[in-house]
């Protein structure tokens, strides 16, 4: 493709990097990414991916912007309170970078719509805030071999990793085979979250996506990165494909899409 003068200028800090160059920027502009959840993780991930010129971004979230979201969900504004989050983020991203085809879908991601959405995208960023969605996203990505860039937060801590879903790579259920029973693990609404921690984790997810499409360096595949803001430490745990994984193991229990685990009340996507 040929860049316009404006694109040469807009993406000049990428293009000047030998690891990206014009070819890498072209690959970013050709990429189609689905972002699940327009919340704390989805906000920074969507902003950086749109700014970087990911060609097509879809954001799905069924909830409306509330004032208690604004402490951390930086894609929204006070003037957006009451608006559907997917629409609020769509408008923000379109304003940030008109190169990007942005779609906002106000719906809950579920068994009946996820496969159609995955068919139209090359990768998924999971920024959802509940277990049924997280396990559904993993299962659908694993079944369709769609790369999944996942992050999660609670209180002062975050977890982030990448599942490329190719060859002998692991999936989320290799790491955490089953969701917890109701009430065992609290949500951010119940336990709190330091606002900037979602930014740290969401931008790591975005960085992984950009490296994936620009074909740069080492990914987090095979590594669960843990972040603790209190001690300001990152630690790593090796993630391996597990023979008894209920999804991709030797004798899988799960052979079709399921929605398992408990939604918390008032859970945005």
């Amino acid at each position, binding site marked *: 493709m040929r860049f316009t003068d404006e694109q040469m200028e807009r993406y000049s800090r990428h293009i000047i990097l030998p690891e990206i160059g014009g070819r890498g920027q072209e690959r970013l502009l050709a990429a189609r990414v689905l972002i699940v*959840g327009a*919340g*704390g*993780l*989805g906000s920074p991930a969507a902003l950086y991916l749109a700014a970087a010129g990911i060609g097509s971004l879809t954001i799905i979230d069924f909830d409306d912007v509330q004032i208690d979201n604004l402490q951390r969900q930086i894609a929204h504004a006070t003037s957006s309170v009451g608006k559907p989050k997917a629409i609020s983020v769509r408008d923000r991203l379109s304003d940030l970078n008109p190169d990007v085809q942005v779609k906002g879908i106000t719906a809950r991601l579920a068994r009946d719509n996820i496969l159609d959405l995955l068919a139209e995208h090359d990768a998924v960023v*999971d*920024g*959802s*805030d*509940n*277990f049924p969605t*997280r396990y559904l996203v993993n299962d659908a990505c694993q079944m369709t071999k769609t790369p999944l860039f996942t*992050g*999660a*937060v*609670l*209180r*002062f*801590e975050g*977890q982030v990793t990448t599942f490329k879903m190719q060859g002998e790579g692991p999936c989320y259920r290799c*790491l*955490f*085979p*089953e*969701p*917890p029973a109701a009430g*065992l*693990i*609290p*949500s*951010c609404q119940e*336990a709190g*979250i330091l606002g900037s921690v*979602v930014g740290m984790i969401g931008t790591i997810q975005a960085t992984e996506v950009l490296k994936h499409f620009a074909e740069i360096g080492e990914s987090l595949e095979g590594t*669960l990165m*843990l972040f*603790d803001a*209190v*001690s300001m430490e990152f*630690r*790593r*745990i*090796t*993630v*391996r494909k*597990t023979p008894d994984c209920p999804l991709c193991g030797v004798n899988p229990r799960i052979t079709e899409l399921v929605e398992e685990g408990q939604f918390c009340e008032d859970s945005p*996507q």
Partner: protein
Amino acid sequence: MPRVHLQAPLTQATSGQSVVEVNGATVTELIEAIETRFGGLRKMIYNERGQLHRHIIISVNGEDIRFLEDHDTAVRDGDEISILPVIAGG
């Protein structure tokens, strides 16, 4: 002593401490030592049959104990142990 890192909400079982240093030669002994000092961790990480919940990971020096000697994995001074749950905040 080995250092045990716990991630929220498991720190509810250690008076809010995210790092605990305890004596023990195996993973089982470390967990018993934490249980004795604080009380409440076993109930958070094991099911009624005494098996580790399938949403909890224990690692020794970054390696999941399912790929080591499970709860019999040996630990020594300076080892870093992590006990963490799946979390879903977004």
